[in-house]
């Protein structure tokens, strides 16, 4: 494991212990994966909440999405659901609440959801927490997720852990993930690869996706994404 990005963050003892405990072997790529893009948002690319490396990672995530679409594999986008006044904002990935939380959670332009994509909005670190994501995966008959986006040690890791707990198979293309903290990013990928997911290069993930037979999913016919209005409109003045 000497070539992994997390190696420089581990102690010598850690490397021996991971190997001796048997962790980190390659698991299984899902036979029916959904590509799952967590918080590939404009707010991570630019502005007060910008995250180093997010722009490049989101471009890599777009390549994975493109590979999936070429075989009719579902692409699911997750972002925060938030009222315009921010009362219910998921601001807990270490980012100060932005002045315009709704704009902050808009999708990055390279990953604007296409009509056949699926959009889920979250209120907690894990996209599974109090959402109907699992119901949608059952509707698709998916047996695993390819998860990209960020933050690696925040929403992405929490979602991957829940996917693992649900006995879904998880693959993570590491160049398509981003986090504010280099050490958190590296150790999240290390821990996930040890126990819960297969962490591998983007190109390998794209190759595995394009090697799947085309058209195995019954995808939506296509509809524009509709963001729900979470805050009642201010009542018109009544005289």
């Amino acid at each position, binding site marked *: 494991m000497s070539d992994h990005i997390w190696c420089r963050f581990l102690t010598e003892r850690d490397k021996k212990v991971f190997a001796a405990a048997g962790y980190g072997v390659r698991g299984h790529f899902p036979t029916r994966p959904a590509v799952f893009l967590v918080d590939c948002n404009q707010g991570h690319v630019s502005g007060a909440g910008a995250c180093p490396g997010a722009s490049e990672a989101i471009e890599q995530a777009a390549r994975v999405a493109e590979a999936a679409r070429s075989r009719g594999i579902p692409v699911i986008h997750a972002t925060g659901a938030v009222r315009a006044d921010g009362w219910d904002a998921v601001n*807990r990935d270490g980012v100060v609440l932005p002045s315009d939380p709704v704009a902050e959670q808009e999708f990055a332009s390279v990953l604007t959801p296409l009509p056949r994509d699926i959009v889920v909005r979250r209120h907690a670190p894990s996209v599974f927490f109090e959402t109907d994501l699992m119901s949608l995966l059952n509707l698709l008959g998916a047996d695993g997720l390819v998860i990209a986006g960020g933050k690696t040690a925040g929403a992405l890791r929490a979602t991957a852990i829940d996917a*693992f707990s649900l006995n879904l198979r998880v693959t993570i293309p590491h160049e398509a993930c981003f986090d504010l903290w280099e*050490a958190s990013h590296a150790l999240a990928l290390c821990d996930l690869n040890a126990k819960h997911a297969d962490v591998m290069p983007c190109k390998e993930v794209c190759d595995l996706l394009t090697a799947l037979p085309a058209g195995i999913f019954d995808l939506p016919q296509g509809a524009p994404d509709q963001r729900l209005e979470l805050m009642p409109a201010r009542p018109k003045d009544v005289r």
Partner: protein
Amino acid sequence: MIWDEFLSDADRARLRLTGLTGPKRPARRPALLVIDVSWAFAGDRRDEDILESIRRWPNSCGRESWQAIERISELVAKARQQSMPVLYSTGRARADSWDIGGWAWKNSRTPTPMRDHAGQPDGNEIVPPLAPQPEDIIVYKRKPSAFFGVPMASHLRRLGCDSVLLTGTTTSGCVRATAVDAFSHGFGVTAIADGCFDRSQASHAMALFDIAMRYGTVSQSDQSYARTREVWSS
């Protein structure tokens, strides 16, 4: 702090600007959670080096386990004096291991039967210094989080708790996953650094950092006594 030596230079520079950003909610009615402190994770010989211990117990965290267990014992005793609820989690699996699911996918030594060495105790048994008492609450889980698939959130609400003090193992696995779910359920989170242990030194440190940055606060066991005394006796 414990994570300083594991951060990159860029991380250290950023940390000087941000400070620790995890939510610091007042803990008026905390519960003490003891996550997975079983033979499987602690090993059965207190002073054994981790690389020796994992020959018999693949998940063992070595002698750091037993240092933390001393701290947890002290915290449990204090909690009981103050009638603070103590909740334990430990693992469960069928004897044929069918239900371990994903745990078998990423580890070359899984499923190792829990009793693969004659005379070894059941790996999921909570170690005797922390043996739960009749008034304590235990959840038996199959997955990392002590909230996943078990009524932990219901129990905490029934007890009127607003927060959790987290101890146990592994810091980066089950303790961290429990911290994330406690946060999502709206409970305040305090991880007790010297009451948590992990087989990986870097994972331990960075899990505590992530909790302090995102989900709550990180404290030491001696600081936690004082706070809990104020809380439950008032």
